[in-house]
C-alpha cells in the first residue's frame, strides 16, 4: 500500500485529491477475501474518466460480486507521473492504493483514438511489459473495450483480448472463466483459448494478417468472425444505484441516467449511431427509480439524461413531467444534452427552464440542405429556424451550433451555406418580438473536421488533405465575420491522426509504440499534442499516414476490422454510401426499417 509514499509526493502535485481515492461511495474490500482483482483504467485524467457512465456501470457490476474487487485508475498528469517515477511508485488502484501490476485484470476503456499513447504510458507506469507476447504470466490479463474496440487492430500488439460490444454480461462471464483457470493453475494461453470461446471476445494473437503489395489487406486468418455482444434486456441490465462522489470537481459532476441505447437516425458520419444499434428504450419507471436513488445516494444537484438523441425517447414529455415533479422541489437542475433541433418544443423548453437555464446546443453539421441530405442528418432549415425561434421566445439569447468541415462531397457553396444559415438565425432573433430584449444574440460555432470511422457508411471515404482542410477553414473564417458569432475549432492535426488510427491496421502498433517512446502522451490535449513526433513515427516505421487517412477505400477491400461484426451488415453500409453519393436520404428506423441487418432486436 502506497499511502506513506504518496504522503511524501502529493504535497508537490496539482490537485492531489484526484490521486488519493477514498471518495464517498467508493468500494473498499478486504483483499484476503478476494479472488479476482480488476483495475478499470480510463486512459485520461481523473476529471474526464470519472464523468463517464460506462465506467460507473462496470465498476458497480463487478463490485456487486463479493469475491471480485474492481478499482479505478486514471492517467496521471506529467507532474504526478514524474513524482511517482522519482519515488518508485508504480501505477496503483485508487481504492487499495496498491500497484495494479499484481492485479488479475487490467481493463482499458477505449473511448477516443488519441488516448492510445496513454494506454502505453499507463502500462509502463504499472511496470509491465507493453507487448502481449512479452507478458507470459497468467496475470495481469490486459483487456480493452469501448467504442474504439470495434477496430482494435492498432492496439493488437499490446492487448491480450478485447471485449466487443456491450460489456455488462460478457465481463462477468470472462471473470468467472478466469477465476476457474486461476484456481486450476492454468497458463495464460490456456485461459486465452477458453476466453476466445465466449461470444464477443476477440484475442488478436490468434489471428494472422497478410498484406498485398499495395499495402491493403490480403487475408485474415482464421475466418472466424467475432460478433458484438448486446445485453438481453436493457430494463433488467444493472444500472448503478450509487455513483462515487468525487472530492474535486469533475467535468460532468452530476447524476447521469441512461434512457435509451442505439439511435434510430442513421447519420452517415456517426459511428455511435451504428455500433450501438439496436435501438432500445428503458422504461420510464426504471429511469425515475434510478434517478431518485442516485440523487439520494450522491447529494448531486444536477441530473442529466444520457442517450444519443434524447428527443427520440417515445415518452419524453411524460418522462420530463415525472422528472420535473421530482427535481423541482429539491432544487435539482435538469440538463438535456443530445437534443435534436427537430424534437425540440415549447413543452421541453419549459421543463428544462423550470429549474435553471443551461445553454442550448444544436448540431446542424452542414450548411446546406444538399449536404445535410448527403450525410442523412434529416434536418431541414425550417426545423433549425423553428427550434431557434422557440428558444428565442423562451428567453434564450445564446445558441451553440456544431458544424463539420470536410464532409464527403462538400463544396464551397456548402461552406457558404453555414454563413447564410447563421445570418438567418441572427435575423430571426431580431425579428422575434417576444425575445429577451436586454441582451444581444450570441452564437458560438464549433467547427470540427470530418473523420471517417469504421462501421459507418462513410468508412470508405477519404479524409481531406491537410492543405484542403486549412483552405476550407480559412475560406469560412474569411466570409463569416460577425461580432455576434464566436468561432472555435478543433485542431486539424489531431483529426488527421484520429482518422489514421480509427481505420488503421495492426501495423500501426509499432507507430504508436514509437510515438510513445518519443514522448507522445495526452495527445487529446492541445498543449501536450506533438503531431511532428507522430509524423516522424509513421515515417520511421515506413508507413504513410495518408494511406490510412486520405485514401478512398473500395467496397471490395478487406478492412482491418473485418474479423469484427457489429451486426450492421456491410451490404447496408455500402448501400448507404451509394445513397449518400446520390444525395438520397434514408428515413429514420421509426418511419421505416432500412434493413441494416440488426434484425428484430430493435424497439423503435
Amino acid at each position, binding site marked *: 500500500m502506497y*499511502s506513506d509514499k504518496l*504522503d*511524501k509526493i*502529493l*504535497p508537490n502535485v496539482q*490537485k*492531489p*485529491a484526484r*490521486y*488519493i*481515492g*477514498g*471518495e*464517498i461511495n467508493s468500494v473498499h474490500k478486504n483483499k484476503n477475501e478476494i479472488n479476482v482483482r480488476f483495475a478499470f483504467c480510463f486512459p485520461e485524467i481523473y476529471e474526464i474518466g470519472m464523468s463517464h457512465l460506462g465506467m460507473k456501470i462496470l465498476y458497480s457490476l463487478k463490485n456487486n460480486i463479493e469475491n471480485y474487487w474492481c478499482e479505478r485508475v486514471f492517467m496521471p498528469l506529467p507532474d504526478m507521473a514524474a513524482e511517482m517515477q522519482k519515488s518508485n511508485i508504480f501505477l496503483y488502484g485508487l481504492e487499495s492504493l496498491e500497484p495494479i501490476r499484481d492485479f488479475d485484470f487490467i481493463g482499458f476503456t477505449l473511448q477516443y483514438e488519441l488516448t492510445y499513447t496513454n494506454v502505453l504510458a499507463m502500462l509502463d507506469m504499472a511496470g509491465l511489459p507493453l507487448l502481449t507476447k512479452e507478458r507470459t504470466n497468467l496475470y495481469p490479463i490486459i483487456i480493452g473495450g469501448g467504442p474504439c474496440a470495434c477496430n482494435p487492430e492498432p492496439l493488437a500488439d499490446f492487448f491480450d483480448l478485447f471485449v466487443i460490444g456491450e460489456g455488462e454480461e460478457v465481463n462477468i462471464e470472462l471473470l468467472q472463466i478466469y477465476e476457474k483457470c486461476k484456481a486450476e493453475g492454468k497458463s495464460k494461453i490456456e485461459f486465452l483459448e477458453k476466453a476466445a470461446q465466449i461470444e464477443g471476445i476477440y484475442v488478436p494473437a490468434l489471428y494472422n494478417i497478410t498484406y498485398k503489395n499495395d499495402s491493403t489487406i490480403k487475408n485474415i486468418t482464421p475466418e472466424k468472425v467475432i460478433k458484438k455482444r448486446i445485453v438481453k434486456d436493457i430494463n433488467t441490465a444493472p444500472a448503478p444505484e450509487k455513483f462515487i*462522489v468525487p*472530492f*474535486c*470537481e469533475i467535468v460532468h459532476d452530476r447524476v447521469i441516467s441512461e434512457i435509451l441505447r442505439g439511435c434510430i437516425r442513421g447519420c452517415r458520419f456517426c459511428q455511435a449511431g451504428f455500433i450501438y444499434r439496436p435501438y432500445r428504450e428503458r422504461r420510464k419507471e426504471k429511469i425515475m427509480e434510478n434517478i431518485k436513488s442516485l440523487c*439520494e*445516494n*450522491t*447529494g*448531486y*444537484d444536477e441530473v442529466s439524461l444520457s442517450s444519443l438523441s434524447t428527443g427520440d425517447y417515445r415518452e419524453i414529455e411524460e418522462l420530463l413531467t415525472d422528472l420535473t415533479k421530482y427535481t423541482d422541489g429539491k*432544487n435539482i437542475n435538469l440538463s438535456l444534452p443530445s437534443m435534436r433541433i427537430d424534437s425540440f418544443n415549447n413543452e421541453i423548453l419549459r421543463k428544462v427552464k423550470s429549474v*435553471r437555464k443551461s445553454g442550448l446546443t444544436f448540431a446542424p453539421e452542414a450548411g446546406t440542405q444538399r449536404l445535410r441530405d448527403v450525410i442523412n442528418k434529416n434536418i431541414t432549415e425550417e426545423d433549425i429556424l423553428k427550434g431557434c425561434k422557440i428558444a428565442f421566445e423562451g428567453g434564450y439569447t445564446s445558441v451553440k451550433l456544431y458544424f463539420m468541415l470536410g464532409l464527403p462531397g462538400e463544396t464551397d457553396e456548402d461552406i457558404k451555406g453555414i454563413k447564410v444559415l447563421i445570418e438567418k438565425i441572427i435575423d430571426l432573433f431580431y425579428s422575434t418580438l417576444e425575445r429577451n430584449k436586454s441582451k444581444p444574440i450570441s452564437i458560438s460555432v464549433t467547427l470540427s473536421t470530418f473523420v471517417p470511422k469504421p462501421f459507418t457508411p462513410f468508412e470508405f471515404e477519404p479524409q481531406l488533405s491537410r492543405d484542403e482542410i486549412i483552405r476550407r477553414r480559412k475560406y469560412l473564417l474569411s466570409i463569416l465575420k460577425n461580432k455576434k458569432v464566436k468561432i472555435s475549432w478543433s485542431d486539424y492535426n489531431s483529426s488527421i491522426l484520429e482518422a489514421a488510427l480509427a481505420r488503421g491496421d495492426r501495423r500501426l502498433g509499432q507507430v504508436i509504440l514509437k510515438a510513445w517512446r518519443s514522448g507522445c502522451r495526452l495527445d487529446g490535449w492541445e498543449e501536450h499534442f506533438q503531431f511532428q513526433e507522430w509524423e516522424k513515427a509513421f515515417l520511421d516505421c515506413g508507413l504513410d499516414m495518408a494511406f490510412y487517412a486520405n485514401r478512398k477505400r473500395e467496397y471490395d477491400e478487406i478492412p482491418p476490422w473485418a474479423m469484427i461484426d457489429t451486426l450492421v451488415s456491410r451490404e447496408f453500409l455500402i448501400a448507404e454510401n451509394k445513397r449518400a453519393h446520390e444525395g438520397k436520404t434514408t428515413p429514420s428506423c421509426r418511419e421505416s426499417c432500412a434493413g441494416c441487418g440488426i434484425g428484430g432486436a430493435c424497439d423503435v
Partner: protein
Amino acid sequence: MCKISKPMRVFFKKTGRAKYISHLDLQRTMQRALKRAKLPVWETEGFNPHVYITFALPLSLGIESVCESFDVKIINEISTDEIHEKLNAVLTDDLLIIKVTEPVYKHTEIKEAMYEIVLEEAEKFRGFLNQNEIIITKKTKKGETEIDIKPLIELKEIKDNKITLILPTGNEFNLNPLQVIKAFNAFVGAELQADIMRTAIFCADGNKFI
C-alpha cells in the same frame, strides 16, 4: 414555510486521505453530505439555490485535523444527536463528525490553534526557537513582507518526534504551520517531511472554540 431557524455547529475530523481535499472541494463535499443525509437545512434562495454553510477556519491542503467545524442553519426541530448520526452514515472514515452543538463563540473570536507536528530531528526545534529572530517572507494582499515569527510560536512540548505548538490563527493574523516547517527545514538544512495535525482551536478569551 420553515418553523424555526437555528444555527448548528458541526465539528468534524479531516484525516488520512481526506487531508488532500481542498477547502472549496470540502465545502461542496459537506453540502452534498447534508443533502444525502436529508437534513432539514436552510438553502439559499434565488438563481442558484444551495445549502448554506460557513466554515470556522480554512485548513491548508495536506494538514490533518480533529477540530474542524462548519455552521449550518436548521429549519426544523431535530436533535444534535440525530444530525450527528445521519451525517456520519453518509461520510467516510476519514471525514467524520465528532460532535454537533449550538454555537457559543463567533468565528471572529478565533485567535489561536494547536498543532501536533511529527518529523525527524524534532529535537532540534528548541535550537531553532533559540535563534534571535526567525524571518520569513509572508505573502499578503499588498505583496510580500518579511516578518519575524519567533515571538508568534508558542512551543508546548517536544516528545520523541512530536512537536506541539500553538500558532496565531483567525481572520486578523494567521501563521501557517507549513511556513514554520519551511523555516525549520532551512535552519536544519534538510527537506524533512512533516505530518501535521490541528488538534485544537482557541478563542481570544483562552477557551476552546465551541
